[in-house]
């Protein structure tokens, strides 16, 4: 018995990339989503980022708080990631916060958003709108150039 326990203990310390059972809800996708948003926000704002996600889910709260200081409301934030459908007309009207969305059509329709992180043809995409970056005085690093588009503004 002792030998079996020692053996299991020994092998347990060996390097493992695979999982055995997923006891908790799988959160790696949200974690990578949070990393991507954190990278974008850090490149866009030089100050400490206070992120606000409207109607944030418990899982998002748990994962995003590893990378961000989460704001309880829109007013106390400086970066808003809109990844749900809410009545957003009333949200932080006439403020200079940065708005990012996960909906490309919303990006096209609403010039409050300076960029979007969305899926297209089964691939994740990022688009920043050139004019809106300029208006908001955002200078992104060179590696972001491939994601900047010159959309025709109405």
């Amino acid at each position, binding site marked *: 018995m002792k030998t079996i326990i020692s053996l299991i203990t020994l*092998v347990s310390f060996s390097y493992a990339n*695979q999982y055995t059972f997923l006891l908790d809800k799988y959160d790696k996708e949200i974690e*990578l989503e949070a990393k991507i948003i954190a990278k*974008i926000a850090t490149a866009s704002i030089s100050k400490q980022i206070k992120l606000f996600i409207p109607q944030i889910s*418990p899982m998002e709260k748990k994962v995003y708080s590893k990378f961000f200081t989460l704001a309880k409301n829109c007013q106390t934030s400086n970066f808003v990631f809109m990844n749900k459908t809410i009545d957003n007309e009333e949200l932080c009207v006439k403020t200079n916060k940065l708005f990012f969305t996960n909906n490309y059509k919303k990006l096209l329709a609403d010039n409050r958003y300076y960029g979007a992180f969305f899926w297209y043809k*089964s691939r994740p995409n990022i688009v920043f709108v050139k004019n809106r970056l300029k208006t908001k005085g955002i200078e992104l690093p060179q590696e972001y150039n491939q994601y900047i588009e010159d959309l025709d503004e109405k």
Partner: protein
Amino acid sequence: MKIFYLFMLFSSILFADSLSSLLQKYKNTSEKSLKTVDEKLGHVIIYSQKEIRLMQYNKLSDILKELPLMNFNTNRYGLTSPSLAGTKTTTSGFFRFFINDHEISSAYSQSEALSWDDLPLDFIDHVEIYYGDSSFAKGNETGIYFIRMYTKSALKENANEIKLRGSNNGSNLQSVMQSQSFENGWSTLLFFNNEKSNATMDYEDQTLQNNSNRKYLYLDVSNENTNINIGYANIKKDNYMGLSFDVQPDGGEIESKDFFVDITQYFLEDKSIKLGLSFDINNLYNEEKNKEGIGLIPVLDLASLGTTIPKEYNTEAQLTKTNVYLSKSFQYKNNNFLTAINIKNKQYKTKHRTTVNFLNTKTDVGQYSDFDEETAYSFLFEDDYRVSKDLILIANAKVDKYNKKGYLEDSTEKLFRIGTIYTPFKNFGLKSFYTSTYIPISFYNTDLANKNSKNLKSQKYKIATFEGVYTHGESKFSVLYHNVKIHDFVYLTPVGFINVDHDIKTEGLTFNYEYHFSNTNKINLNYYAMRLSETINNSDKGGYIKYMGEYDKFSYFTSLLYKSSYDYLDIHVRSSFDLSLGVTYNFSKDLSASIKGSNLLNKSTKSLYTKGFPGDTFALEDHDRSIYFSLKWVF
């Protein structure tokens, strides 16, 4: 100082990867398809989006034929249907099939074979296979194997796709998928598929026809809290052997039209209240002509076989299924509770059913039995208690109350399940369940019930399973032990279904090993063996080896499926070795061409059939060798 270290840690995590590499990782992680996995439902096998793509699984049957602890054979109607290892399907209900939350198994026979076994996987994101009864948490009907297909997300696809496929035997397929998201948060995914399949099998000096035409339509309309799924399947095919005594019908066909609409609505911010409403309608048509006679069990009278054996048979039936499900989940201390009610109504209407005997007398047979409607009221409860970070105890209870119209008595079934999931080390875990459950009697069972013992009882199952998983680096090794005891097993004799008068026992082991060579290449080995207390009439051992990967613009796979030999009566059925190979060349990110060879050694599985009445047994191959070519364009 602490803040400084935290800042350094945060920065190193965040800036170690470029934005493009993070996007690639995000895509790879999404393709692992692990978001919907629920370990508490049973012992799980996942066919991820990546595996479906690399292995060129074109239709559901490509996956079903390699699953452990089961066989996947062709039946007399030329339909491939699953059966538990060691046996050939005579009754269904062990296997339950779902598209998202909606059960697509037939309301008539509890089988998926006619409408869904050739379901194209182009609109399916991933497939989860649960060994164990997962009806406890989902409110569905009971079973042993649960095949859950999850459709692609319109938000992630967000494009149009056209696919064309042809094969060496003249079969061809066209499919279109259109998905888009809207500014208001709604998204739609529409899929349409048309397949003309040519299939024949040589038997004695004749060729059995198994040609078919299948059309599938699927529409998903969703937002964050609402999912509306609409599905339609239209199948028209040859009878293959049908029920003809000489195995070679002179004419006839099968037609099935299946339609369902399923609406799921989540309430509250944490989505803890779930309401599901669904409606299914299935029209079945079958006709058969055979001058040597048709073995239509319900109309045969042993005392006057000469006048009751039909030479022509024609039937049309309609099945409807209405389902309402309401659940609430909540947490209390270390417990996750789930409680739900489910109401299901099934109706079976015989539109017409006629036979013509050898005296050319036409008989309006009508419905076989007066059992033509059933309403099941279910109440279910689940508690998973987290004893510690690495130990979960699971307890389930369910009560199903059946109101049955006709000669079958109303009944109440009580079932329960207890289980544990224990991961004492990061790379070593144990999972076990003990389940007391049952399989209900279907309209198909009562239609074909032995006239001397028509009061069929549901089959009672006691299932104990134990799984161990060990991982090391890129390797994962698992062993699953199962022990099943069945009381009142429903068995099809030459004169109809009976409850077997003794308990049936089976136990077995399944081994699985997988190794990831890199982020893209993977090898997977599987082997199972089982013991059955009865005489086996199908393979009782099997396994596979699969290798898949990607390099530059190519993706490729190979697989070898094995099912063991066996002897039944005076027939020896050889082992089967189904070898498949496939390559895809990606001209660009949006355009690809594929070639796939299936059953290349021409040693497919064989199935047992009978000729005559009560009949001599013979074995016949299930599949021919096939080569497929396909082209996919995303725009």
